């Protein structure tokens, strides 16, 4: 039963934190959207189109961040076999895929306005697409086995292998000359973006992060409860089967 000791603690903690997290996320996202849509000035080059940035950039950051988190959880799962780590990684994956898709879609929309095309095969865009495929591959792999344990372990290995893509995403704009904007917030020498745009962006980013945290907790709680239900049902079946079969077994010569 030691396996359930930690999950039990997690269930208690998350029950307490989750509502606050969700509420704060809602407030920040609301505030961020208000700042982004009504307070931030239109760009002198891009006009109103620039407002896509307040969704696009946080989504892009989250896409990488969630993957890094997933890889970390996978490492913990492999090294310490911590039961929560697998569940965390698996619960995070679809969320990460969602952020990545959001980044791709908003980027695409933006690209249509700015570059006149929905899609170019440029290193930044491509490496994000690869990230999306990695998420999909992870999800497919985890669900490709009938025994949940096997899928989890295979997925953990894949998540670690895929980490190599993260630096490629980050530095693709520096290594290849691309259409895409180079880093303007997280860069050596400080942000090059106007504060009037920076603040709404940071509020949105924090909102995204809390939103993710709340959803992650919900998904992990669901997964834990489902595992417990499965274990109980299986024990029930086995007890039943044993009761039915034992007399016949005993009658064997």
């Amino acid at each position, binding site marked *: 039963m030691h396996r359930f000791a930690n999950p039990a603690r997690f269930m208690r903690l998350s029950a307490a934190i989750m509502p606050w997290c969700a509420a704060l996320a809602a407030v920040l996202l609301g505030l961020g959207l208000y700042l982004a849509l009504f307070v931030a000035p239109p760009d002198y080059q891009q006009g109103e189109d620039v407002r896509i940035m307040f969704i696009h950039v946080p989504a892009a950051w989250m896409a990488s961040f969630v993957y890094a988190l997933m890889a970390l959880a996978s490492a913990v799962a492999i090294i310490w076999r911590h039961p929560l780590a697998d569940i965390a990684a698996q619960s995070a994956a679809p969320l990460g895929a969602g952020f990545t898709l959001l980044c791709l879609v908003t980027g695409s929309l933006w690209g249509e306005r700015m570059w006149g095309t929905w899609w170019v095969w440029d290193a930044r865009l491509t490496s994000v697409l690869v990230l999306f495929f990695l998420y999909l591959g992870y999800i497919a792999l985890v669900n490709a086995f009938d*025994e949940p344990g096997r899928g989890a372990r295979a997925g953990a290995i894949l998540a670690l292998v895929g980490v190599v893509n993260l630096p490629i995403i980050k530095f693709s704009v520096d290594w290849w000359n691309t259409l895409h904007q180079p880093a303007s917030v997280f860069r050596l020498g400080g942000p090059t973006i106007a504060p009037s745009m920076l603040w709404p962006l940071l509020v949105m980013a924090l909102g995204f992060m809390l939103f993710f945290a709340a959803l992650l907790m919900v998904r992990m709680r669901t997964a834990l409860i489902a595992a417990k239900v499965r274990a109980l049902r*299986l024990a029930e079946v*086995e007890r039943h*089967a*044993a009761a039915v*079969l*034992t007399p016949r*077994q005993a009658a064997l010569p």
Partner: protein
Amino acid sequence: MPAPSPSAVSAPGFAGHALACRRGERLVFAGLDFAVPPGGALVLTGPNGSGKSSLLRLMAGLTRPEAGMLAWNGAPIGDDPAAHRARLHFIGHQDAVKPVLTVAETLGFWAGMRGGTEVRAGLERFRLAALADWPCRLLSAGQRRRLALARLVASPAPLWLLDEPANGLDAEALADLLAAIAAQRAAGGAVVLSTHTALPIEGARELSLTAFGRRAA
């Protein structure tokens, strides 16, 4: 079977204590003890699906026990998996024979991977010498099985784990197998095997698994 006391785990030979095995989400058996002294033999019996193959794979270290421990001469095998691998032979339900390699190449490969050099002796022990240059594609079912068993002789190892080794063997080959087992035991080796037919193995202990993992009395 006389259930070994927990102290058997620290005795010389191969032993397991309080073993449990889970396949997928099913507990196949639990609370299982066994001990095979040097020169001893353990015969696993039980109905189809009772967990004989699962137990053998667990003994080989291919799967990890859900609970309990396995020990060789008192040392847990988990402490040094490489040493455990080096000292055992595992022959499963499948023969690990490639259709395109010849009989001699197949045995040479498997023996060579363990540093064994007794290929000739292995072929002769199981009467395969005449077939040495045949591609395995041509072998009959029993001939393939004999080729798998020849690995036992071609590279000696102190622990043999055999999953229904007698399946498909003719009377002569069965006698060869029994002779090989006797020789192994005489040399101080331990043998664990599963079977559905009674095999005349002298002084063997029997471990009988039941469909839901309780040892029969």
